[in-house]
């Protein structure tokens, strides 16, 4: 395997593979953050999470088309507008869904799974009816394309760096919201003891709605970022849902740090294995390992030990 490469090449391999792993890591974190909030904090299994992401992607596509035809001079900056719009659109849809559907099911987590699966089917067909069955391509502004030459053999893609920065920023903001802001404290209070939180004057319904909206909004941003590397079609969202859930569960559902750590572990494992075997087998092995570890340590990597 290594015989064909020189030492310098090998160094470059590991540098670039590491970077590929970091991009995958960012992607996983983006996908999983929203779900970690919804599933980890609220206990809702949102199978339509992928469809919220795709909504963000479609919003990005529409924004880019709009800028192309109406504001071509500002095209290079459209992506930031698109991300904000994606957040608003997915977040708003999320709040609507919470109001219409989820709030009736807080006591039946497995039923949220079924109901949101139904929702995902409806959303998929809605996308197909509105945007057509074909995939849409989002054109990136010039500055996001291409790569940066680090050394002779090592190049890093610019959109990869962008995704990583975006992930970092969103993670910081989410961590701040959940752990430092007053609102985050309310969310955690509601999670721990709904009745008590209500009794001390927290509007639990409002907290639920905004938490769900926030989770979906982050999914929207993730979808927006995905247009840079992946495809946008009515059923694209389904591809991500299992991976995303595994990342969250593997990390230990209630811990944001665990989610990030598990995204890192899984992405590095997968990208390293992909180098040595076929993509299919790498995927199978990664999933199998996660399942095996979850069987041994069902609470995930970073779960608190508490009296139940």
């Amino acid at each position: 395997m290594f015989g064909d490469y020189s030492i310098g090449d090998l160094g470059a391999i590991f540098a670039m593979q590491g970077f590929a792993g970091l991009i995958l890591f960012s992607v996983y974190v983006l996908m999983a953050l929203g779900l970690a909030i919804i599933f980890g904090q609220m206990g809702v299994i949102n199978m339509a999470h992928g469809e919220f992401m795709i909504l963000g992607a479609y919003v990005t596509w529409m924004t880019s088309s709009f800028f192309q035809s109406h504001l071509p001079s500002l095209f290079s900056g459209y992506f930031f507008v698109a991300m904000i719009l994606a957040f608003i659109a997915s977040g708003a849809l999320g709040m609507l869904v919470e109001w219409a559907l989820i709030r009736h099911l807080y006591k039946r987590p497995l039923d949220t799974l079924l109901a949101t699966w139904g929702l995902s089917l409806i959303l998929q067909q809605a996308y197909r009816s509105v945007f057509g069955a074909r995939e849409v391509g989002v054109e990136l502004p010039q500055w996001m394309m291409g790569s940066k030459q680090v050394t002779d053999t090592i190049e890093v893609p610019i959109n990869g760096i962008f995704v990583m920065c975006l992930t970092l920023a969103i993670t910081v903001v989410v961590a701040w919201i959940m752990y430092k802001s007053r609102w985050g404290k309310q969310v955690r209070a509601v999670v721990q003891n709904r009745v008590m939180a209500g009794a001390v004057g927290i509007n639990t319904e409002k907290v639920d709605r905004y938490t769900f909206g926030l989770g979906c909004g982050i999914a929207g941003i993730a979808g927006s970022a995905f247009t840079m590397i992946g495809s946008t079609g009515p059923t694209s969202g389904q591809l991500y849902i299992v991976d995303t859930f595994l990342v969250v569960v593997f990390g230990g559902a209630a811990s944001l740090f665990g989610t990030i750590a598990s995204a890192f572990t899984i992405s590095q494992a997968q990208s390293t294995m992909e180098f040595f075997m076929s993509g299919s087998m790498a995927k199978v092995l990664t999933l199998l390992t996660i399942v095996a570890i979850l069987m041994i340590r069902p609470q995930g990597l970073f779960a608190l030990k508490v009296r139940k």
Partner: protein
Amino acid sequence: MLVGHQPKEFLLAVEGLTVSFDGFKAVNDLSFYVEENEIRVIIGPNGAGKTTVLDLICGKTKATSGSVQFRGKELTKLKENQIVQAGVGRKFQTPSVYDDLTVFENLEISYPRGRSVFGSLMFKRDAAVRERVEEVAEMIFLKDRLNMYADVLSHGQKQWLEIGMLLIQDPDLLMLDEPVAGMSVSERGKTAELLNTIIKNRSVLVIEHDMKFVEDIAHKVTVLHQGQILSEGTMEKVQNDPKVIEVYLGH
């Protein structure tokens, strides 16, 4: 079952029992002993670790260190169902009965036979089972409600039903977590009467806040505070212990 059993000095010996949850020691180096046919009541303020002690004995929570010996068997190494089969019964704080089953079926499930998967497939509801279920139902005042679904019972009746479910297991050590909490005055009286009939030939470990009730039934009282024993002895002795008065009875 106990008849003819070789009496030992202690039925239950808890020694150096410690459990910590992420550094917080809910039970800290606890030791106490329960004799045959003794009624022991554990009291203590909220968060003293009373329920945790029961959890540790019955295997619901795994101890960090220490030992729990029951008739010479080390319980900390056994699984929950093995602990039950060794002769320890546990009633939970909130009544845990099966709402979708009838009173009869609730009791029948606790009947100590056919506890393996295939045993339960082959289980036959024979005369012995019926008799025993009816006998216990009589004791817990639910004889005329055998065919009712458990979800229509009152709170007190559910507590009795759960006590009945333990009774039918015929354990050597019965552990009750606040058996009269939430009961009406008349129900409390009946429960005390019920407990007095069922403690024959077995030891009982009770957690209770109701001092009147404790006084009525306790042979010996253990006072827990912050996971450790504050005082132990007869009700009288404990009541007069200044340490106890300070942390618990005083306020």
